[in-house]
């Protein structure tokens, strides 16, 4: 399979971790894969994006206007990445709770309304699905599993064609055993939420 995925968000949301999981699963399923991470000096609270390229590709970066899936763990970052990378027939999955940059919380900049962000992205990508990973993860009982919910939503697109179990195995190995069941729940809930969102 050939697929370009970008997972973006704010430092601490687990974007890089999720991208490693997806790439490793793709390799276990017999594909080639590369990951390009951009986190710069972001210790905490800075913007993060990680490019996962599955298939016989060369560079670690997705080309402009050609991301098949953008997993936006934060809306403003979804807008930032979506404006540059969303493919006209691509999918953007948006986790709506905003994380305000300091300029916004101090009143020096205005955070665009989330429904406007959604609208802008609809003009750029074929499909925009709002999946509230934050709420779903909290309901499941582990707020930190938001990135796994969103990964499940990405799987819900049907564009990741290898078996779900391969991803679940990599997820299970990536965290402590006590989180296995919770993460599996999170993944499946994300997958269902995506399907509900686009139906």
């Amino acid at each position: 399979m050939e697929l370009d995925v970008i997972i973006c968000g704010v430092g601490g949301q687990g974007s890089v971790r999720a991208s490693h999981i997806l790439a490793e699963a793709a390799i276990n399923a017999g594909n080639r894969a590369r990951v390009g991470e951009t986190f710069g000096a972001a210790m905490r609270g800075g913007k993060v994006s990680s490019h996962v390229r599955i298939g016989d590709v060369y560079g670690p970066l997705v080309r402009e206007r050609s991301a098949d899936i953008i997993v936006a763990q934060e809306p403003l970052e979804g807008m930032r990445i979506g404006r540059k990378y969303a493919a006209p027939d691509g999918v953007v999955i948006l986790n709506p709770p905003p994380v305000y940059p300091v300029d916004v919380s101090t009143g020096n900049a205005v955070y665009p309304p989330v429904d406007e962000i959604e609208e802008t992205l609809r003009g750029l990508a074929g499909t925009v699905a709002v999946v509230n990973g934050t709420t779903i993860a909290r309901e499941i009982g582990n707020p930190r599993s938001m990135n796994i919910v969103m990964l499940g939503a990405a799987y819900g697109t049907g564009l990741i064609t290898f078996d779900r179990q391969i991803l679940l195995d990599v997820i299970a190995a990536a965290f402590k055993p006590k989180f296995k069941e919770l993460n599996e729940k999170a993944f499946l809930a994300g997958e269902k939420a995506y399907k509900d969102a686009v139906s």
Partner: protein
Amino acid sequence: MKKLLSGNEAVARGAWEAGVVLGTGYPGTPSSEILENLKEYEGVRAQWCVNEKVALEVASGASWAGARVLVTMKHVGLNVASDPLFTLAYTGVKGGLVIVVADDPGLHSSQNEQDSRHYARAAKLPMLEPSDSREAREMAKLAFEISEEFELPVLLRLTTRVSHSRTIVAPGERGEISTPFACIKDPKKRVMIPAYARLRHRVLEKKMERLIRYAEDAPCNRLEEGGGEPGIITSGISYQYCKEVAPDASYLKLGMVYPLPIGTIENFVRSSEKVFIVEELDRFLETEIKAMGMEVTGKRPEYCLGELNPDRIEALLREKSESTSSSPPIPVRPPVMCAGCPHRGVFMVLRKLKLFVTGDIGCYTLGTLPPLSALDTCLCMGAGVGQSEGFRTVLPAEDREQVVAVIGDSTFIHSGITGLIDIVYNGNGGVVIILDNRTTAMTGRQPHPAMGVTLRGEETTATNLEEVCRAVGVRRVRVMNPHDLQGMEDFLKESLPLVEPSVMIARAPCVLLTRGEEPRPYRVDLDTCVACEQCLQTGCPALVKLPDGKVRIEGFLCTGCGVCAQVCPVEAIGEYIRQDEPR
């Protein structure tokens, strides 16, 4: 078993397979993870050194004893290590010595985007450059072979995009290590007095001639004759981008970027109608190849700036300017000091006193951004200390007391101590603030000598910062709590007019070190809050402005440092005490 490794992990793996017994370096993005990975392997000692110069000196000693050594640093770190570097080219090495230098095109986390390839030419040393993790492992191993064959240090150049990208690597086994290591007296090779150094310079020039011949058949230089046009000479990450946008072109892919294989290049240029040189940052290959008298096409000046990517290279190959599309601006998200960061209180005081603050590199460089806007210089590691002396030396006496230097704890040890000695020796007073957060925070919380713990987590003797300051002649040394704004203000007001130097050590651990400890969040009493926004001037990410101008504190972010409560003029902010708790 194939693995998905980052470029940095692959270098560590390759070095270990090559039989490295020692790894030295100083943390610096994007190179830091190399030693952090190397330490996980058996039979190798990985250690953070005081700075890059010391790291290279330690490495040269181990190499002269016969051991294979890896040294890691970021591009600007090589500037610090350049003194031993140039003469190490004369002396040569015994055990293989490979210096990894990680450049940062695009300045993801650096103060400049210098191109370290110039060091290879300037110091007359071979340099290899991988384009992905597979090559990073292979070239790390090859670099050790070249180093021992030519008895020269070898530079291995990475860029952020190679260091921080993951591709598939097939790891191998660890090779034989030739022991024992020993002290062998050989002053004509190891003592660079002019009489011996003159001879060694001659030897070095001969080695370069041999290296140029080696480059013609070097296994890391690769000809890919697609038969198509154009011909492209490229290296590093640019190769991957080119393959993506011009899959049918013919390629001369250089893994060894210095010295260059003249004959190979000549043949390649002759066999193509048109040959492009595609490289990130400076026109290094272009200049070298044009100096050989060959007709090749380089790039427009704009492509010397920032990172390349497939879209830029597509335009570059069309010999076009870049198209600049502009979408409406959206709020930026720069990295910020964390909620509870011990630097915040210090900068609040410096801003209040309207001081001119000389600084350098660390999380505290963020103190220059609004709303703190309290850091006025950042040149290089350690610079703020000497700069404060320079300002005070030439300023009229009445203006001197507005100058103060700030420096982090790890940075102070890296290159601040010498500046402080100079203030004692030549200066006329002044205050140096050591922002001691008990770690090397910005690069990912690496330990340093004042912490009393090594990279491998072993306990060791801790350098005592206050004793160092006293020992170099500073009598006024005060350790302060950086969350105590009034205390710091008082000490500064008292110290700045003095003709004797003072050091204020603002000591509290980085909040990322104390994560997990029970936080005691504060809250705003909205009935008392007058919406004056004073607290928002701390730039703390835990504070959120409400539509009516009043402020709410995000309980899950607040660490209870109390800085916002100290600036609140109406005492609306206090520790949150649950109703069910006895007071």
